[in-house]
């Protein structure tokens, strides 16, 4: 009896926390988790346009959507493209932003704030608008890139139309759009390394390279991991860039899993199939994240 009474005030705080978290949790549950579960359920049916017109034509198909995915050449193509984008685009994105962050954070830089802002600007832009610009920059005859190439005597490249160049073009644009965000996080990471350590290292006889190798790199590793995971998760969901720039072409060479899912889901209303695709994507991302986390742990314990 006494125990219950004693917790009365504690309950006050308990309840405050509960009520504070409740609205957001409810919203997330309702508008995220419920649809996700529903999608999971849908992925075992053949929900399609006929079902939309007449619900009685809905069939439970078990795993056959997933089996079909495994046999769908478009899926494999899209997976290949997506992996290409994640691996090449993701690492470029991370490495480039790291390099730029190092530059911006360099001790000799004047007007650091200005550079930081300018470099962050692409992050803020609207993709739809930016796609207009980039489609034009990539234009085979009038685009700036080919004009530049021409100055060096290189023959023009059909950036968005050539199966070899379309994905690199998408990657370049994605890097342009996203590096600023990672750069800021890297700058934060760099700034959290105490100046003391560099001073100590200098006294210990370390030159600029040794300082980078033994202080900056290892201490930036957690940031690096964070940025890689975030970038990777985001890049796996690639959709808007190819949707706006190439519609997946040429010959589906920029068709990403996200775009394939959108096409199946919202263009053809094969909701069952699209949901199954979504879960396959989810499982891939989950696995890669786990691998990354594991790798991170290994590297960290090695250090």
């Amino acid at each position, binding site marked *: 009896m006494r125990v219950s009474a004693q917790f009365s005030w504690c309950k006050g705080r308990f309840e405050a926390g509960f009520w504070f978290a409740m609205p957001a949790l409810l919203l997330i549950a309702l508008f995220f988790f419920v649809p996700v579960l529903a999608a999971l359920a849908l992925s075992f049916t053949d929900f399609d*346009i*006929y079902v939309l017109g007449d619900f009685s034509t809905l069939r439970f198909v078990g795993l056959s959507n997933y089996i079909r995915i495994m046999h769908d050449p478009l899926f494999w193509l899209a997976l290949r493209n997506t992996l290409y984008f994640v691996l090449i685009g993701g690492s470029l994105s991370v490495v480039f932003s790291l390099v730029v962050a190092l530059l911006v954070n360099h001790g000799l830089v004047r007007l650091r704030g200005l550079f930081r802002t300018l470099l962050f600007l692409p992050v803020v832009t609207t993709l739809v608008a930016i796609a207009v610009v980039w489609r034009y920059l990539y234009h085979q005859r009038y685009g700036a890139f080919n004009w530049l190439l021409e100055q060096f005597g290189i023959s023009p490249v059909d950036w968005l139309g050539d199966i070899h160049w379309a994905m690199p073009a998408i990657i370049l644009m994605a890097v342009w759009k996203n590096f600023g965000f990672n750069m800021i996080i890297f700058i934060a990471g760099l700034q959290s390394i105490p100046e003391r350590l560099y001073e100590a290292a200098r006294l210990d006889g370390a030159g600029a390279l040794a300082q980078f190798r033994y202080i900056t790199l290892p201490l930036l590793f957690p940031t690096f991991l964070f940025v890689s995971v975030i970038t990777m998760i985001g890049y796996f969901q690639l959709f808007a860039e190819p949707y706006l720039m190439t519609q997946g*072409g040429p010959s589906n060479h920029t068709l990403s899993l996200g775009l394939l899912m959108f096409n199946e889901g919202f263009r053809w209303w094969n909701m069952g199939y699209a949901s199954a695709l979504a879960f396959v994507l989810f499982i891939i991302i989950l696995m890669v994240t786990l691998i990354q986390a594991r790798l991170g742990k290994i590297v960290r314990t090695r250090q």
Partner: protein
Amino acid sequence: REHAEPVVVVDFWALGREGEVVRQLVPEFERTHPGIKVKVQQIPWSAAHEKLLTAFAGRVMPDVFQLGNTWLPEFVALKAIHPLGEQVSRSNDLPLDDFFSGIVDSNRVETRLYGIPWYVDTRVLFYRKDLLTQAGFDRPPATWEEWMDMMEHVKRLDSARYALLIPMNEWQLPVILGLQLGAHLLKDNNCRGDFESPEFRQAFRFYREIYRRELAPALAESQIANLYQEFANSYFSMFITGPWNIGEFRHRLPAELQEQWATAPMPAPMAGTAGLSLAGGASLALSAASAKKAEAWQWIEFLSRSEQQAAFYRLSGDLPVRRSAWQDEILAADDKAAAFRQQLEAVVSLPRIPEWERIASRLAIALERAIRDGASDDEVLSELDRDVDRILEKRRWLLEHRS
């Protein structure tokens, strides 16, 4: 005084430029139909299909909507469209025999009429007279053979240019060529793909040949920055496209070129056969969910009148679906439109099943594979048929299920 009368608002979705233009017909309608107001909303073509489907799924369909007639079967399957047979037969202003028959056919699904054609859209050949003359020809091609020959000659004028522009991922041209040869595209009651048929193979071969000989640039639609400028620059001299471009060419090409371009019906596979083209265009459909069907029908009926068709032509350049409307003085005098008038008597429609758009998108993929990746015909077409069979699985099941 006016507010005493209850006003019914009819929601109307029109696509693309039509959406802009049709607004100008509304005052006349509202004047002659007191008590009905029309609210026009414009939907961009690029998002139209998704948009209509989501609107249906979201149960926010308008009362009347424009839709490409290739989409009609899909919306019929969805039970989104109210059949119009009864209304047409009751109407005293809609003699179906005044409409081009190929177009009307494309609005039927299993013999029932679901849409009233609004304007027609078929594809003909646009060409530069001066360049053809330079290459030694004084008239447009009538047969495939002539056509190929002409293109070769044009290409020889300047190898940096091309003879023909066909956006590589557009499926229409090979389909037209196939239909001209009598290909069915689908078989077994439209339940399986038939792209491996000899007719389609032949058409496909011809189509590839154009690229193989570099008579057309391998460009996707989105890569063509300024079509009109390129046409004016002689970057290409032939172009297969629809009537909307008559207006655009007139508007955008420099004045000195206006005399130098012309239109012609599609070439035929061989002399004596018809140079068929696609029965395209847009129709007006009445939403099955509409609560204002009577008023909505009046709006459809209004737009289908001969004089409104003519008026609409003048505003938009969209070609009328009624032969009587072609007697409009401007239209009759338009030499560039004449080719369309001729072509419209020889149009056929595509398979009328909901899956056609998906099949067409697969076809587009197949075309890109063939032209860009250089996959063989066999490979591409059998793959296509397999894809199509898979797409039609549910249709087969439904048909079995019903019987």
